[in-house]
């Protein structure tokens, strides 16, 4: 009995597969939908792929929306991640049209390896490090010195990531300057309870109140997170300036559109969006 059932089941399955795969192709509606795009360019030409630093997530999503309304039917496909990961992916031939990097170093790497033309690289925003703490400030953070308080729970970005580099530089400067003891940097690192994978992870852990204090980018501490966070500005002479650069990739069939996106970011409208999310602009940087 069982053996006789198998051909029957097979037949049913085959029928189902046959009907489901053939049906949509033959319906006129589906034909109409696919026809115009196949006559013009391949579908891929209608998507602009933008690799952008994770800290740019909010402003770029907004700019992407503006761009899509300006250039229909173009769709923008964002890939947000740490800049070191993005530059690695670009070096390995990832199909990006535009690269927006959070640190000069990673853009320089892509230029050096021939994926980006140096002439096309433009600085479009700056960011600073800032100290953040939960709004009720459980550890009484009032000055940069307080980061060295024993027993503090501090979270920062991964030591070898882009943010870790800026934090190291800031703490080194502080340890050498007046008013700080020379062991300041070491004492701060001793307070670290977690190296988060991204600056975003730092903001989350501080917002949840799991950590007493964190070091984030100024842009991360603005916007919707601002109501749940206390912010301590790091003195300008100690702070590191994080510059953001954008460039289209070389040998790109969509170069014109890629340039158009970079232009939008640098336009007054684009700069206004960046300001809204706490970024500093090239013309107002210290």
């Amino acid at each position: 009995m069982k053996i006789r059932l198998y051909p029957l089941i097979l037949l049913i399955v085959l029928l189902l597969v046959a009907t489901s795969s053939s049906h949509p192709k033959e319906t006129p509606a589906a034909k109409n939908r696919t026809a115009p795009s196949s006559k013009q360019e391949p579908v891929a030409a209608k998507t602009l792929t933008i690799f952008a630093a994770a800290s740019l997530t909010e402003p770029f999503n907004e700019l992407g929306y503006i761009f899509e309304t300006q250039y229909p039917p173009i769709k923008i496909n964002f890939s947000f991640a740490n800049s070191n990961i993005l530059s690695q992916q670009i070096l390995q031939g990832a199909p990006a049209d535009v690269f927006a990097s959070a640190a000069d170093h990673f853009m320089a790497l892509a230029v050096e390896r021939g994926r980006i033309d140096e002439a096309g690289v433009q600085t479009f925003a700056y960011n600073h490090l800032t100290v953040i703490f939960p709004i009720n400030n459980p550890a009484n953070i009032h000055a940069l010195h307080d980061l060295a308080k024993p027993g503090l729970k501090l979270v920062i970005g991964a030591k070898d990531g882009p943010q870790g580099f800026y934090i190291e530089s800031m703490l080194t400067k502080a340890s050498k300057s007046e008013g700080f003891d020379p062991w300041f940097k070491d004492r701060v690192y001793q307070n670290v309870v977690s190296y988060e994978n991204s600056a975003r992870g730092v903001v989350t852990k501080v917002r949840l109140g799991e950590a007493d204090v964190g070091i984030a980018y100024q842009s991360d501490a603005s916007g919707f997170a601002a109501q749940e966070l206390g912010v301590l500005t790091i003195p300008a002479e100690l702070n590191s300036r994080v510059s953001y650069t954008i460039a289209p990739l070389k040998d790109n069939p969509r170069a014109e559109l890629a340039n158009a996106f970079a232009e939008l970011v640098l336009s007054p409208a684009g700069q206004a969006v960046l300001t809204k999310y706490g970024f500093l602009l090239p013309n107002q940087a210290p």
Partner: protein
Amino acid sequence: MPKSGFLHPKAGGWQILALPLILFILLPILAIFFELSSFDFFASLQQRQALEAIRLSMVTSLTTVAITLIFGTPVAYLLIFQKSRFSHVLDTLIDLPTILPPAVAGIALLIVFGRQGLAGQIFNVFGISIPFTSAAVVMAQTFIAAPLYIKAAAIGFSNIEGELLKSAALDGADSWQMFRYLILPISWTAILSGSIMTWARALGEFGATIIFAGNLPGRTQTMPLAIYIGFEVDMKVALTLSAILILISFLVLVSIKFALRKST
């Protein structure tokens, strides 16, 4: 049905059809060892980050197994020997953590045991804070991995016939003697293989750990976390730790197969 042909159960056609998936699974695993041969495995093994991750992974995962044995065995006991109408519900709930995405487990643990969490606030009164500690790593691992032991032990206990327990009771055995001389000898392979599975799963735990315990070398950075963070920084350490985890997983599977064959 025809007795020969391309798709006859014994025909070579199946070997060809099976090849793509077999290669797909084997190639990446072999590739890790191939990559490893291009540099000094033992040199990157001696890096501080690698050593600390291995030590922490071993300590936390073995602690997880010990805790699971102590607190999981009663649960398995309950599931089998004290069946009630809640048994089915309990049985399903126990399985839940093994199916859940580990990130969900991490957030759930944070909501309960985090500093602002329901239980966490009570701990806080006594000056105990769980997130960012090795204890948090053990809790994440136990949450995810303990069900594997409980289910295995329960299956082992279910093989013991009720008649046997009754006659033992008639002969005047007390409950400890029943456990020690009857239940344990009969179900030890299930207990052993369950413990090994829990250990292996605890070693591989990543998602719940990075959310609930954070990432600090020597305290909460277990091998999977070191691999994840490490591959952005030092691919060699990531590859070395990956190879160790593959070897351990392989040995675990072999030893479970061996234990199960011995018991039947």
